């Protein structure tokens, strides 16, 4: 083999190795981005598959000292990363401390996908809330894979009155007495789903200034606040 040919062969081999290394770095980088945004610790379902969440008007309770980087953002606590058992009936209790906002899309004003398509609010059964009376929604949707169990759950959370007096102190922060929302849903096989609030309860950004579509940004489009994952294990 002449030296020129040998140089060519070495060059080709080096180029292939460099390309493979770049591809590997790219794959690792993309995999590292899985679950974009802040991912708080998971809330595991305990015995009986029960989940306890709370929706607050600010981030003072569960985002670190002083409420973290966005203390004024609405948020779910203690986590937006939820794990529940497969083939189970999961009971979810949400303490809703926030006041009401008006729906853009009344589809989300009705309870859907829960056991009996119902929920209880402070012990009273309800199947829907008035479009201007909900503070948030807890909405689970199926990932884009038709082989997954088709899971869709939508629960509108009745907001507390705007003039409700502060009656509860949590970690030194005062809030009104919450509405306690309880519902159940059934899980299928293992899989990862996303859940999200579908009421515009965030800050500007998304569509700001176009047709008046405000308040879909900030916590609405950031995991760890009003969006997260539900893993069925």
């Amino acid at each position, binding site marked *: 083999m002449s030296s020129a040919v040998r140089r060519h062969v070495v060059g080709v081999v080096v180029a292939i190795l460099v390309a493979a290394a770049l591809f590997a770095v790219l794959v690792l980088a993309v995999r590292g981005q899985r679950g*974009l*945004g802040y991912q708080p610790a998971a809330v595991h379902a305990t015995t009986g598959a029960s989940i306890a969440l709370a929706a607050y008007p600010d981030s003072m309770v569960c985002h670190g000292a002083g409420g973290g980087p966005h203390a004024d953002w609405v948020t779910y606590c203690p986590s937006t990363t939820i794990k529940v058992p497969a083939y189970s009936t999961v009971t979810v209790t949400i303490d809703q401390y926030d006041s009401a906002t008006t729906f*853009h*899309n*009344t*589809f*989300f004003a*009705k309870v*859907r996908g829960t056991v009996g*398509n119902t929920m209880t609010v402070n012990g009273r059964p309800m*199947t829907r809330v008035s479009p201007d009376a909900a503070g948030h929604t807890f*909405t689970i*949707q199926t*990932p*884009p894979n*038709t082989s997954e169990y*088709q899971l*869709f759950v939508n629960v509108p959370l009745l907001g507390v009155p705007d003039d409700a007096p502060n009656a509860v102190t949590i970690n030194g922060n005062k809030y009104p007495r919450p509405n306690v929302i309880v519902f159940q849903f059934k899980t299928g096989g293992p899989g990862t789903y*996303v859940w*999200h609030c*579908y009421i*515009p309860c965030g800050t500007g950004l*998304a*569509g700001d200034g*176009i*047709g*008046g*579509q405000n308040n*879909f940004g900030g916590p*609405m*489009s*950031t*995991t760890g606040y009003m*969006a997260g994952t539900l893993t069925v294990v």
Partner: protein
Amino acid sequence: MAETSPTPEADAGKPGEVRHVRRVLKIWAVLSVICVAIVILLGAIVNETAHSSDAGFAKLTNVLFTAMAVPVALFVWVFVGYSVVVFRERRRPKQTVEELEDGPPLQASPRQQIAWLVVTGSLAIFLVGWGMVGFYKQTTDPPARPLVVQVTGQQWMWTYNYPSLGVQSNELELPIGRPVQFQVTSDDVLHGFVIDGLAVAMDANPGWWSTAPTVTPNRLGNLATRCVELCGLYHTYMWNPVKVVTDAQFNAWVRANRAAASS
């Protein structure tokens, strides 16, 4: 003795010399036949099954346009590749880079230029005409009294409202053989509403209702909607199942939704 590089002039047909243009055209023709056959074969496999006449036309357009583009692209690539391999300047032993000489200058050939312009221009005119005929068929004389479905995009879900039926759903169910008109909007950012199997594609603009051309499902089956505008964190989750069902199944689904809504 110095080695001489072959040149395009060699195609002039001097005895014993290679006819390069003819050789390139043969390579191009063989590759074109193979690649067009592959495009037609893959087009039948890769493209989603058409569930409407518009989707059938879109599928045919996709395959046809690709098949027509392949020989044009190959024509350029084969000529460039052949030239790089055959007409490259070869360094002789002990020859420095400075001693390399340019090849013969290219000479414009009016006949070839006209042929190139006529062929590519004709292709372009054909493609424009094909698109205009398709658009005309899709938008002219739409069926009367279509089933109106209002589609709302919101990070990160589509929801559907059937105003004439009083049904709201996050799953799209359509009766076979009945014209459907999609009216599309967004509650937050720009989304793109697409159902591949029905050839429905419409931007969902916040604050605006856009009406897609009426489409008539003509095959039972399961499809999916998806968002084709990058719309945020869970953009890839923004899809819903679509079912094309019989009239009886559709009516049963409507009744079930109405019952659930009134509970």
